[in-house]
Every structure is written in structure tokens, then in C-alpha cells.
């Protein structure tokens, strides 16, 4: 019982950035806890993916036609089987859609503890101490967990750059679990990003609105500012869930990841799920009447001015120049 198992996420062709962060974290933990860094990759064809996993000492490959497309049930079977077979001390899963499916499910199936929302992990003896962002990022919980255990890690917590090389890269091909023959769910189809007319992921400037905008009718204020700035309009999840802006403008965990030079967060509190989608932005300016909002922790500049006063004022200043 040793080592750190990383669940590798992919779209079947490319390894997801979160997985490199996990490999980087796994290397740090493995140095303290001992054992290998193992990467579990399950797909219909792992060929295109394996080459990217040089940070792992061993690459556990599971291939099966039943693993074409991401299916929570199938992936959980594979992960559970791998945990049972490899008996890692630590299992790392990204806190992504897949992480939401798999971390707690696999932990429950194997009887392991699970800690979610992790932004920091370190070994203390045979335990793992984790920091987790709770309550929308307003509080951080520090936990001590005996190993073996499963952790789901928030994107942006570890350096992705450290997760590309440094392992032995041994490939171990494992037989698919028998359960894949009796799946009770199926993938009917997928739609890629960019289905809509806009692509905010490439925008240099993003004006992003959150719940604080109050209603669909007020979006106009932000739209006018975005136009004056030459920016794209983004939104936090609640704004999209409320139908005030379309899905293609959503920034964050289940939306887009943006890397603009300027990110103007308007009425956004800064839940971890949102920060995940914009942590690589250049200049971040936040407008929120709640001075304690977590967004101010990641912003470069902030103000508690009422957005209804401030937005038109900025627009007015930009208009004559623009």
C-alpha cells in the first residue's frame, strides 16, 4: 500500500490540464509518503494520451470500446478496480465534472475517506493534511486524513507545468473490469464547445457579470460597458442558470476557462467554481458591494461601489475615447 494514484481526465484525444496539476501534486506527496506516482487512464484508445503522461512512474492503461466517451458509471468501475488492485495511499481526482462523479463514488465503493474542494495537500507522517475551500471560498477547512484516502483537487491549486515529466513512464496495460459488459448507462452524443456564436475563451477583455447584477434586464448595463471596452461579456453560473445570459458565456467550472488580459468581475462573489475558470486572467478588477467577497482575494483591484452607479460612469468615460 503505497504511492499516489492520479485519475487522468481526457476527452479521448488530449489529457485535461487538471490532470497535469494532479501529477504535480502527486509527485510532491509521493516524495513524502513514498511509492510511485501512478496515472490511471481509461479510454477506448489510450494511445494518444499515454505520451503526455511522462510525469507518472507507471501508467495504468485500461482500454475497452465501452470506454468510448465519458460515462461516469464506466469510469467509476475502472477507478474502483484500480484502487483495489494497486492499493495506493492517496487517490487524486480533479474537482471537475468527472471529479464530482467519481471521487466520492469511488471512495464509497472502496470504503476510503474522501475530502473535496482541496486547494492544498501535504503529507504529515502517513496522514495527508488538506486545505479545502468551503462556503463559496469564504472559509478554508484544514483536515487531517489517514491514508489511504481520496482527494478531489480544485483546478489552479498546483502548477500544471510541473506535471509533464519526471516519471519513469512505465506502461501497464490492465484488463478492463468485467462490469463494463453490464453497464446501465450509455453516451448518446456529445457537443463540443463553441456551439454558440461567441467564443469568450479567446477574448482579450472580458466583462463578467454575476448574481449581483440583479436581473436579466440589468445585463444591458454590462453590455454597454463591454461594448465601450471592446470586451466580451462573460457570466457566472447563477446568471446562466437564471437564463439571463446564454451558456456559452459562462466562466468557471462547468463553463469556459478564459485567459483574458483584463477580467472585470461585476457583482461576482468569487466562488471557487468561478475562480477556476479565470485564474489565469491578467489584470483582474472586481466590483462587489460586499467587501468580504472572495473575489477580492484574487483581484488586483477592487471596489465596493454600487455597480449600478459605477458601470455607467466607466462607460461614459470610455465612450468619447472609443
Amino acid at each position, binding site marked *: 500500500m503505497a504511492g499516489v494514484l492520479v485519475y487522468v481526465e481526457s476527452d479521448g484525444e488530449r489529457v485535461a490540464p487538471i490532470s497535469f496539476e494532479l501529477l504535480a501534486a502527486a509527485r510532491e506527496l509521493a516524495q513524502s509518503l513514498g511509492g510511485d506516482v501512478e496515472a490511471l487512464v481509461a479510454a477506448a484508445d489510450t494511445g494518444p494520451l499515454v505520451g503526455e503522461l511522462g510525469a507518472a512512474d507507471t501508467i495504468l492503461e485500461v482500454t475497452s470500446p465501452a470506454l468510448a466517451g465519458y460515462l461516469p458509471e464506466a469510469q467509476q468501475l475502472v477507478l474502483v478496480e484500480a484502487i483495489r488492485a494497486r492499493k495506493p495511499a492517496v487517490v487524486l481526482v480533479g474537482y471537475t465534472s468527472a471529479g464530482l462523479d467519481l471521487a466520492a463514488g469511488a471512495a464509497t465503493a472502496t470504503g476510503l475517506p474522501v475530502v473535496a474542494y482541496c486547494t492544498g495537500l501535504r503529507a504529515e507522517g502517513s496522514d495527508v493534511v488538506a486545505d479545502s475551500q468551503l462556503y463559496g471560498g469564504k472559509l478554508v477547512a484544514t483536515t487531517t486524513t489517514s491514508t489511504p484516502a481520496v482527494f478531489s483537487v480544485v483546478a489552479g491549486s498546483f502548477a500544471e507545468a510541473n506535471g509533464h515529466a519526471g516519471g519513469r513512464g512505465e506502461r501497464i496495460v490492465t484488463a478492463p473490469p468485467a462490469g463494463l459488459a453490464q453497464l446501465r448507462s450509455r453516451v448518446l452524443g456529445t457537443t463540443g464547445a463553441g456551439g454558440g456564436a461567441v467564443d469568450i475563451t479567446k477574448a482579450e477583455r472580458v466583462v463578467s457579470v454575476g448574481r449581483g447584477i*440583479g*436581473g*436579466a*434586464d*440589468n445585463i*444591458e448595463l454590462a453590455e454597454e460597458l463591454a461594448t465601450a471596452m471592446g470586451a466580451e461579456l462573460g457570466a457566472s453560473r447563477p446568471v446562466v442558470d*437564471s437564463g*439571463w445570459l446564454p451558456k456559452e458565456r459562462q466562466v468557471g467550472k462547468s463553463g469556459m476557462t478564459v485567459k483574458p488580459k483584463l477580467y472585470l468581475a461585476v457583482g461576482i462573489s468569487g466562488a471557487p467554481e468561478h475562480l477556476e475558470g479565470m485564474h489565469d486572467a491578467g489584470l483582474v478588477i472586481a466590483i462587489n458591494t460586499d467587501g468580504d467577497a472572495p473575489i477580492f482575494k484574487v483581484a488586483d483591484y477592487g471596489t465596493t461601489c*454600487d455597480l449600478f452607479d459605477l458601470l*455607467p460612469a466607466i462607460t461614459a468615460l470610455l465612450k468619447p475615447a472609443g
Partner: protein
Amino acid sequence: MPEVEPERVHEDQRLVFEGMDISGGWNRMFEQRVIWQHDISALDRVTGIPGAESLGYCYQCGKCTPACPVDHVGDYSPRKVFRRTQVGADLLTSPDLWLCTTCGNCLRVCPKEVNMLQIMPAVRERAVAAGQVPAELQKAFENTFQYGNPMGEPARKRADWVAEAGAPVTILSRGPRPVDVLFFVECYWSYHPRGRDAARAFARTMATLGIDWGILGAEEKCSCDSQRAAGERGLFEMVAEQNIATLGRYQFQRLVTPDPHAYNSFRNEYPRLGGAYDVSHYTQFLAPLMAQLPWQRELPYRVTFHDPCYLGRHNGEYDAPREMIRQIPGLEFVEMFRCKENGYCCGGGGGGMWLDSFTGQHTQQRLSERRVREAVETGAEMLVVCCPYEVSRFEDAVKSTGNQGKLLVRDIIELVDEALH
């Protein structure tokens, strides 16, 4: 229902309509002829709602139309609402339902007592029950339910304005004691930055007068009168019951509030729920005390005054605010041509406070914008108000009508405070 916006009518020289050449001086009446199955069920449904019966009394005399503030900026009046409903338009899903500000000017002139003050809340209640409520208004309802104020501000911040009042304010929830005056601050004086300015000016004035007074603090909740008028009677009743229970825990002689909507509900609605108080609007409370104030300076302003619908038309008080203005040294007072009984509405009543964007989509300008233009027309440099909705509404309208620098908006209490220091 086809609606023709006059500025969009083009009288083409040559036009073929449904295969027929109708070139020439055709007029706006030319539209496809339809056999109207007048669907009286629409009218029956509306007038069948308890409280909305009187919509069916309209005999199309049209007196309300010129009195209705909304018709000045759009195509809406009680007469039109009746007629549209009579020809089958569904009021429950029509924008008309949310345009009425319950200002009461139509009822003042209506020979048949078609009472929009009862019709609108009653019909809106049905629309709310059916989930057909504009999103921004729904948010105000949800906030009121969750936080006790329509803005969604935390209750614990309700008395934050006190810190910078520059005068002692007794917060009864922190240290109960009998007081002479219980001041019901209401939401906009509690939370809105400009409302807080007025609240602080009020606190300083009360201190100058040496009055024994206190506020409820975090325990106070919205009086909910506007939520009631906007169709959420259940919310109104629930919060009113909570307020009545809270008020019942403290000893005071009289209740004073700066909000005409709160004043209206304490005077006319709360007694029915078991909450009877000796209530005054703050202008009614202070007007008789103005002579005792040690004025420090004269204010060199030419001012005009906007009557709040819920203080004036709804409750008949036109004199108290004018008496206060008269006694503030130095002011030159000029009336707007629409004032007192005929005062124009700011657009904030009846839920309009939380429907500005919605209303904006169905009118050419906001009522507050039109009112600001009327104020500018008097030559006054300051628009004086005494309803917490109005400072923010009119200051915004001053900006949006391009009158920045021409017109200031002040609550009367702010002028009192200014003349005292």
C-alpha cells in the same frame, strides 16, 4: 392584439397588401379585418377575482387616461386596460398588469370608482400565483422573504447607518427600554446610501429636538406595502405579522416612519392584522416642532416639492411637508404645475420600484424622468422629496435626462439638517 405605434406607421405611396393594391392615402385603420370572437371570458376571469370587480364598471368615459401618469409616457390607462381585457387580451400575461404604479390618480377622477388600487394587487396576486411575475420583481419578493428587505441586504446591516449618524440612536433590539417615539426606518433609509444620508440627518434633528426615540435595528423588516400592491399579499401578511409581533415587544407612544408606503400600511393595512398604532409620517411628526429648531443658517435655494402618492392622494397629507419647507430659513418655494391632488407619480409605487427595467421596455421614458423634467421647468434648482424611494429615483433620472448640474434632489430632512449646522 395588434398595437400600432404611431411613429412606426409609414403611409407608403405604393403598397400591395395581401395581393391587393392599396396605394394612396390609406390610413392607420387599414389592417387585416378579423372576426373578433370577443372573448368575454377574459373580462369575466378578471372581474371574477375578488377585489377586481370594479374593472367591469368602466364605461369608457376616458377620464382616467389624461390623469394616468403612465399614459403620459406610454400607451396605458385603466380605460385601455378595461377595453383590452374586454376584447379578450389576457391581463394576467399582459405587460399592462405591471405598469400601474397604484398612484391613485385615476380613482380620483373616475366617476364609476373603478379602483385600480384594489384591482391591480388582486389580479397581480393571481399572476404571481401562476408564476407570471417579472424576474426583477420576483427577486424583490424572494429577497423580502429571505432577508426582510427587497434589496437582499443582510438583516444584521440594517442599523449600520447609525454608526456615522453623529448623534446617539437607541437600538431597541440591543437594549430594550420604553421610548416616546419608535422610528420605523424602513429599507431604503436603512440600506441605500442616499437613504442613509437622510436617516442620519433625521437622527441629528431628533437629537437637536431632544426627543426620546429608538429604532428596532436588525429586527425591523420591510413594511411590505409595495409588495402587497405588487401582488404578494401573502408575503405582506407574513412580514406584517412578524413586524407586529416585534413591535409588540417594545413600549412606545407613537410610531413615526419616513416612508409613505410604510405609513400607508401602518395606517390602513396593519390594523386589520391586529397592529394598530398612533402612526405619523415624519413630516407630520416634525412639522409642528419646526419652530423649536435653532436654525444656524439660511439656505439659498429655489426649491420645488414632489408629493409622494402614498402620503398625498392615498392619505390626504399635503400640508406637513410644505409646512416644513416653509419654515426652513431662506428657501424659495415654487410649486410644479402638477402637485398635491394632481401630483405626478415618481413611478416607484405598486412595485414600480423593482420594475424599472420592465417598465422601461414598455414606456418611452421613466415616470421619474418626466417628473424631473417638470421640476426643471419650474426653474427650481432643487427637487425636494419626502419619500425614501424618490431620492434614488430622481437622482438617477436627473442623470439620465442630462440635467446633471441643473437639479439637485434632497430629502426635506437633509435641508433641515443643513440649516441646523
